[in-house]
Every structure is written in C-alpha cells, then in structure tokens.
C-alpha cells in the first residue's frame, strides 16, 4: 500500500479504532482522561506519517503501539520533572518504572478486547446517570462534547465539565477498568443496560424541545447494544434490550405524521415500519427467550414484538400484551408500568377495565404532573363516550407536557371531544 492516505481517511480509521484504543490504554494507565489524550496523540502521529507511508496492515495495532510509546515518554518525562523539582531526595515511586516497563513489555501485544471493561467503567454506578450517558457517548460512541450537548439539549461547557468530573470520579475511586465477576456483575450490567436505554430513549421520546425524535441517539444506542451483544453473547437481558431497541427503532419512520405531530402506535402507517429492524429485533428476542429471558428488557421486548407482529392495529394481540404487563409489573414494579398495564387492559377488555386499573395508580405521587396519566384517562373516557370528562383530561395532559409537538397532539384530541361542558351548557 504505497499510496499515501488523506487526512479524512486517516481520521475515519481512527474513529473505528478509537474506543478499543482508549479501552486498552485505560487498562494500562488507569486513567480515562490520559488514555483519551494518548489515543489522540496516536492520531496526530498517524496523520503525519500515513500520508508518507500509507496505512499499515493493522492500523489498530499500529495506533496502539504509537500511543503506548507516548505513554512511556510521558511517564519518563514526569519522572524527570519530579527529580528536578524535588530538592529532597524522595523515594521515587517504584511503580513509575514498573508502569513504563509494563507498557514496554506489552508493546507487541495484540490488541485485546478491553472494550467491555471500559463500558462497565463508564457506566459505573459511582457516576450519576447523566454522567454515565455522557461519558459512554464520548469514549465508546466517539461523539464530540458538542454532539453530546446537542443531543441532550445542553451546552458544550456543561457536558465537557460533566465528562471531566466523571473521569476524575473514576480515577479517585480507583476503578480497575475490568469486567466485574460474580454477584457484582449482574448489578453492574443492569447499570450498563440502563445507560444504553437512557441514550436510546433520549432519542426516541425526546423529553424536551421541539423535536419528538432525535434518531441519531437511537442509532448510537443501537450500535452500543449490538456491540454489547457481541461481547456478552450469553446474557438474556443484553439481547432483551437489543431486541427492544431494534423493534422500537423500526417505528421511527412512522412515528411522526406528515404534519410533524406524534402518531400513536395504533395510528401509525405500518408499511413504514422498518422490517429489517423488526426482523433483527425478533431474532434478538428469540435469543433472549432461549437464554431464559424473563427480565424487564426481555419482557418489554416481547411487548414491542406483539405490536411488530400485528399486520394492522386491529390485529394486535391485546390480551397477550395485558398478560405480559401483568408479568412485567412483578419484575419491574413502577407506576409507569402500571399505567401502561391499564392501557393494555383497556384495549383487551374495554375502557372501563382500564379506568378501574387507573384508579389504583392515580394517587401515586410519582405520576403527579405526569402528562401520560391524564392522556390515558382521557383516551379511556373518550372511548367510553364520556366526552366532556375526556376533554378535561386531554387539556390537563396538554398543560403538563414539556414537548411542544405532543402538546399540539393532545390539544387536537381535546378538540375532538367537542366543545367544553360550560360552552355546551351556555
């Protein structure tokens, strides 16, 4: 490969290798920030050398070696500086030498798969949920702080600071960048899955702003989910989450109507559902179920699959969905699950059944000011023919939602209930 490589092409190769580079380096230097810096240094070296030499046969290993050399230089330089500045001869850290030697010894090692360890570290429960998501998108997803800020409708400085703090917290906690084993593994895995699903949902059901969907975050979460499924091929919940995301993402092309408003599942044009993703999702679900999947993600994926399998909204197997919600609330007790269970039962057994179940959760403080609650009640009342009450609920829901387009949708449902009671009476 004698031909030189362009700047752009080199950067594309670097992006492919970046996460694995950082993972390998972080394992050695025990510091995400330094690992990221060393990886960046390796890119700079590649940018200056590859135009001359062409791309090496194994660019990942090449970049790793370059980064490790920089690490050794940096450690030696720090040590020299310390020597100069320290008047009193101190017992210099023995492990400075050890670290440098260890890196030197590993120079010819193959690029290992330390990625999983980095994922577990970036999603460590010692970090806040927001910090985990930002750090994961940065070091695993390779997003810039600006891209992350735009995705989370935040500003760059806030995100940058969040990431810096997260890295410091990891360093302070002395995390080893290893994949946890035994009992700890399950708890830590649920944190990893939670981060990926949070990223997905931030894209899928944007909680704020004028856009209902930010597909780039869904795509990123999907990629992370697929990566994780390769790294943990025997975990039911990993495949459960992957199945859930693939099936939900399959509806992205149909979720927004021609007027830019949110389309409820039952009204979506199913011809626009992405059959490729549905197929992938159903395959991942089958895998989760074969692995004994009975956890929250596998059950949620099974729910999503009921919709994906129905050729039309009328074909939806609502009794099955209601039964899955009965199971889901056992493994994932939450007022939101109970709310969705009420919706499922209303579809399976009539709006009155839904209203009864809704009464059981309506007083839950977690659902106070939660727009989907009055939206659901409005829907049940509407279907029960109690239009005036339905209108009141839709109006309440519209006032509560933070999403401009969802508000417009709820207002249109309120309008469909006819004039308000007072007006009708006057």
């Amino acid at each position: 490969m004698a031909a030189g490589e362009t700047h752009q092409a080199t950067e594309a190769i670097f992006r492919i290798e970046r996460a694995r580079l950082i993972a390998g380096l972080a394992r050695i230097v025990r510091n995400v920030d330094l690992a990221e810096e060393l990886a960046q240094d390796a890119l700079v070296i590649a940018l200056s050398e590859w135009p001359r030499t062409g791309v090496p046969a194994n660019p990942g290993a090449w970049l790793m070696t370059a980064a490790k050399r920089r690490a050794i230089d940096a450690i030696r330089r720090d040590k020299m500086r310390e020597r100069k500045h320290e008047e009193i001869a101190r017992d210099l850290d023995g492990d400075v030498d050890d670290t440098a030697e260890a890196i030197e010894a590993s120079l010819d090692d193959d690029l290992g798969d330390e990625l999983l360890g980095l994922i577990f570290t970036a999603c460590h429960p010692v970090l806040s949920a927001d910090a985990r998501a930002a750090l994961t998108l940065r070091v695993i997803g390779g997003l810039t702080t600006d891209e992350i800020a735009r995705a989370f409708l935040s500003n760059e400085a806030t995100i940058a600071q969040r990431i810096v703090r997260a890295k410091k917290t990891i360093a302070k906690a002395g995390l080893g960048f290893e994949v946890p084993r035994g009992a700890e593994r399950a708890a830590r895995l649920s944190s990893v899955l939670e981060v990926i699903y949070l990223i997905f949902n931030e894209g899928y059901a944007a909680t704020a702003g004028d856009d209902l969907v930010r597909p780039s975050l869904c795509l990123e979460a999907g990629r992370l989910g697929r990566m994780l499924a390769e790294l943990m091929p025997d975990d039911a919940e990993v495949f459960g989450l992957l199945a859930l995301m693939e099936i939900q993402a399959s509806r992205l092309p149909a979720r927004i109507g021609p007027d830019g408003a949110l389309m409820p599942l039952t009204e979506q044009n199913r011809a626009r559902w992405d059959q490729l993703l549905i197929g992938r999702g159903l395959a991942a679900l089958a895998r989760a179920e074969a692995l004994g999947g009975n956890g929250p993600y596998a059950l949620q994926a099974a729910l999503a699959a009921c919709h994906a399998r129905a050729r039309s909204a009328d074909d939806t197997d609502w009794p099955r969905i209601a039964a899955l919600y009965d199971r889901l609330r056992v493994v994932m007790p939450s007022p939101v699950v109970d709310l969705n269970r009420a919706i499922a039962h209303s579809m399976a057994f009539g709006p009155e059944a839904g209203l009864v179940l809704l009464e059981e959760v309506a007083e839950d403080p977690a659902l106070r000011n939660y727009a989907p609650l009055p939206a659901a009640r409005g829907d049940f009342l509407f279907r029960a023919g109690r239009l005036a009450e339905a209108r009141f609920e839709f109006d309440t829901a519209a006032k509560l939602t933070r999403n401009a387009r969802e508000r417009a949708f709820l207002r249109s449902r309120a309008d469909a209930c006819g004039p308000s009671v007072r007006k009708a009476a006057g």
Partner: protein
Amino acid sequence: MRVMVLVKATEDSEKEFVATPETMAAMEEMGRFNDELRKAGILLAADGLTPSSRGKRVAFDGPRRTVIDGPFAETRELVAGFWLWEVKDLDEAVAWVKRCPNPMPGPSEIEIRPIYEMADLQKGSDSGD
C-alpha cells in the same frame, strides 16, 4: 446513515460456488471481517448472491412485462453480494470497505451506496407544496 455495500460480480463469481481449499479459506477470511463488523455494531444484514445464470429479469415497457432468463451480460455491472451497514458517515464506510479482504480471486470492486433517509424523501414533498 444506512448504506448498502455491493460486491460487484466478476467472471469468478458468475460461476457456481465450488468448495476448494482456496474458496473455503477466502470464506473464512470474509467471516473474520464480518465478525469485526458485528463487533463494531454496524452490521445489519449480509448475503451472497448466486450467479446470474440462476436469476431472472423482468423488463418493463409501458404495460408490457417481459421475463428474461439469466445469465446476464456485462458481468462487472452485476452484484454478487451485499451488506447493509449502519455507519456515521461515508468515510467510515470507506474505511471499513478498505479493510475487507478482496472478495474475489482476481481484481474486483465494492460499491457503497447510501440508502435514502426520511429527510431525503421529505425534501421532495416540501418542494412540491
């Protein structure tokens, strides 16, 4: 962005597959490349196509439909296999394709074609308003 990556046909791919030490080794090498794609989380689908001698074409002309049996001429314009990838941009796709082992014993070509996205299709309807 989603891209379709097309392996263009050659005289070799237009012959039926025969298991030989060489073809098996090539398959194995391609399998390793596919593993890398899966690990990176970008592989959505992949398949290889049988020679065009097993295929058919339907030609359209107004209301007329004419069925043409394979094999088809212009071998180099035919497709021998494809992937669907979800990548961030075309540069990433190009970088991955460069890593692909040569899919054919001789010179060959792989073509990358971005798939229409919602935004592309909505452009048309907006301008039609």
